[in-house]
């Protein structure tokens, strides 16, 4: 499931295999959007205060409109074979995958550097919010290790 949803398509896959992968992803995100709309609608009906109720109604309407739009677009593109073939070439191009991987690595490294600077600054002024940053960085490292472990097992 993780491989189908989150990993880049392997080079050399056929148009049919790519179509199946995209269809699986579209179905997954469709169900997530429907679930999110239902949950926010239930939460809205459970609220007593009118401002929080209207917040949840707005949130639910936002997810619904955005979700419906993206579902319609992705489902219509799913039947456009020419577009899918072009998209498959872009998605399976090993050089583009390497570029994207390097860009992501640099971005995460920069984020960690910024977080460390923020921690140093916050600790110097003994700001209580610094502890949240420590937790954030620990969470990122734990998440990174778990993802590496899972991908190592899967791939």
């Amino acid at each position: 499931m993780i491989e189908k949803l989150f990993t880049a398509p392997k080079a050399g896959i056929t148009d049919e295999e790519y179509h199946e992968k995209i269809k699986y992803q579209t179905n997954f995100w469709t169900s997530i959007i429907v679930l999110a709309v239902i949950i926010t609608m239930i939460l809205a009906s459970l609220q007593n205060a009118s401002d929080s109720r209207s917040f949840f109604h707005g949130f639910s309407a936002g997810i619904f409109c955005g979700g419906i739009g993206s579902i319609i677009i992705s489902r219509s593109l799913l039947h456009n074979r020419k577009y899918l073939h072009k998209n498959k070439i872009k998605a399976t191009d090993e050089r583009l995958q390497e570029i994207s991987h390097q860009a992501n690595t640099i971005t995460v490294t920069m984020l960690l550097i910024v977080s460390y600077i923020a921690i140093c600054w916050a600790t110097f002024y003994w700001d209580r919010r610094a502890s949240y940053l420590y937790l954030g960085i620990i969470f990122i490292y734990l998440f990174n290790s778990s993802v590496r472990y899972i991908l190592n097992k899967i791939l």
Partner: protein
Amino acid sequence: MINRIQELRKARKLTQAEFASEIEVTRQTVISLEKGKYNASLLLAHRIAAFFELPIEDVFIFEKGEKKID
């Protein structure tokens, strides 16, 4: 590692876009390969060699100083 992609592609009178479409990569990747900025993976190298109907070592040539596993 150097390669003969440009030479072989021109011999077959193919544009970079046509060649890219044949081996299912983007045109930018073909440009990078021809300029030697990017080294193809084994899978892509195999696909390119198969397209030209040549052995891999005739398309991709190891330069002196590069470690070669015997």
